[in-house]
């Protein structure tokens, strides 16, 4: 399938959202709101829940399925306070020794006046640095769009997985084509060279696992993908919980340390 067709599936308004997975995979989810600083950003949801027998912290970038929902969720484009809420919940998880599971689905961090005034760059940067050191197991799953720094701000984790039809990229194919070829209409071509599909990124070792979807996308059989993901999460959290802290952190450091291609 051409990469751009996957972009279209990843962006489908009918595609299951973070809350769909949270409600299906976990029990006793209690949503916790706010960054304790400015406001509650509805583009990010988070809280505590049970994954089988393990209490965990779950966080997700939430898109809407209707126009009204999308306006309330800012189309899944978080403000700085969204990333700060996520960090607050992750530090809380660390305090109580809970593993953290993040669901990523954003075209990118929001670009606006308030976002700049309140330090969008600083908020993302702080998450990258703090997540590198969280003393609990962490897993992130790209369930739709993984857009640039706004996605990475939740994805500095021990494991990064992608659903089969999700994409993860430095920029949208449209933006990429505009920058390099001055022509956003060449987005399809851009999608091909950018290596943004789950398959490509597995090959590049950017992600460890690809979760299967039904033909045409997971909206066609949500239960199939969600159950598959649930099983893999339970299994992986049990593996990560067994690691001693130094090993966990050293492996996380090495996971990101290895990226880059150069000669000397």
């Amino acid at each position: 399938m051409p990469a751009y067709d996957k972009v279209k599936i990843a962006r489908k308004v009918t595609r299951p959202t973070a809350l769909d997975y949270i409600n299906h995979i976990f029990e006793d989810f209690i949503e916790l709101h706010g960054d304790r600083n400015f406001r509650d950003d509805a583009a990010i949801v988070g809280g505590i829940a049970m994954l089988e027998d393990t209490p965990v912290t779950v966080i997700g970038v939430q898109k809407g399925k209707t126009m009204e929902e999308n306006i309330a969720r800012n189309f899944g484009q978080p403000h700085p306070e969204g990333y700060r809420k996520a960090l607050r919940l992750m530090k809380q998880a660390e305090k109580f020794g809970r593993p953290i599971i993040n669901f990523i689905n954003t075209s990118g961090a929001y670009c606006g006046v308030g976002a700049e005034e309140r330090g969008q760059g600083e908020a993302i940067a702080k998450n990258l640095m703090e997540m590198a050191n969280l003393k609990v197991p962490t897993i992130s799953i790209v369930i739709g769009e993984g857009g640039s720094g706004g996605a990475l701000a939740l994805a500095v984790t021990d494991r990064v997985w992608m659903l089969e039809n999700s994409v993860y990229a430095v920029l949208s194919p449209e933006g990429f084509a505009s920058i390099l070829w001055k022509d956003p209409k060449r987005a399809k071509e851009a999608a091909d060279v950018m290596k943004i599909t789950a398959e490509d990124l597995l090959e590049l070792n950017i992600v460890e696992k690809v979760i299967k979807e039904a033909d045409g996308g997971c909206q066609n059989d949500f239960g199939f993908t969600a159950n598959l993901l649930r099983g893999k999460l339970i299994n992986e959290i049990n593996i990560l919980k067994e690691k001693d802290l130094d090993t966990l952190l050293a492996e996380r450091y090495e996971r990101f340390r290895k990226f880059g291609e150069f000669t000397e």
Partner: protein
Amino acid sequence: MKFFKSFKAGIDKISVENLKGKVDAIKETVPSKEKEEKAKDKDKKEEIPEGHIKCPSCENIIEKKALGHYKICPKCAKLFRMNAKERIRTVVDKDSFEEFDVNMESKNPLNFPDYSEKVKSLQEKTSLKDAVKTGKCTIGGRPCVIAVMDSGFMMGSLGSVVGEKITRAFEYATRNKMPIIVFTCSGGARMQEGIVSLMQMAKVSAACAKHSDAGLLYVTVLTDPTTGGVTASYAMLGDIILAEPKTLIGFAGRRVIEGTIKQKLPDEFQTAEFLLEHGFVDAIIERENLSYVLSDILKLHNVKKVGEN
């Protein structure tokens, strides 16, 4: 239903215009050949004499020599951009800079068409291998690790080499219990390296976390322009964040935001002064004072002079 349709049409229009804004903003950060040629034509018409330059701020024609050591316009005090070599010369003690990883060069992780050629031609033009110089030095006699980005090389974009060299600089500083100073200037991620470029943000930030956990000092100096993925990673992670006056600092491009809100933004938006006001910069320091201020900061963190007990 009708209401919903027109509402939806409005939203679609917003998202299209939003995208258009992004495209324009991107265009603005990457000067097209056309623009460059136009600028050249303009220069020709004005006949800028040999050894002179037009100030982009006050538009006076100035003798290059008159900009001096610090590259400041003598008519309007505009700070011209400095390359890494010039920056190092004005900040660190004479002959103290020992460069790390001199020969590191980028590969082409995505096999992106023409990328290797572009890198090669810039290497010849700039005599840099990539967009950052790293090394150790002394400032006011006090030893530190330093990384200086160079906007003359693909707009200081963050690719594998920049990410690796800065990461190694942090690791060197951590191993040797040294402070590190990073001068940032960057248009953001290096598009030609795609996702590998994005991963550099995480890589450097993780190295920065280890350095911080060791109780060591990290100072960033934001210089024009510091944007995108560099702002959203190590630029904003300093224990102390300094900036030069009027430096452009931001996450998103101005035109992207103007496209979203459909309003012109005030001139001071995303300047160092704007960030100071909003609490994201510790202090704005005049260029000619940076070396003294950095030396004092090192002193205040008990960094001893070479040979001092």
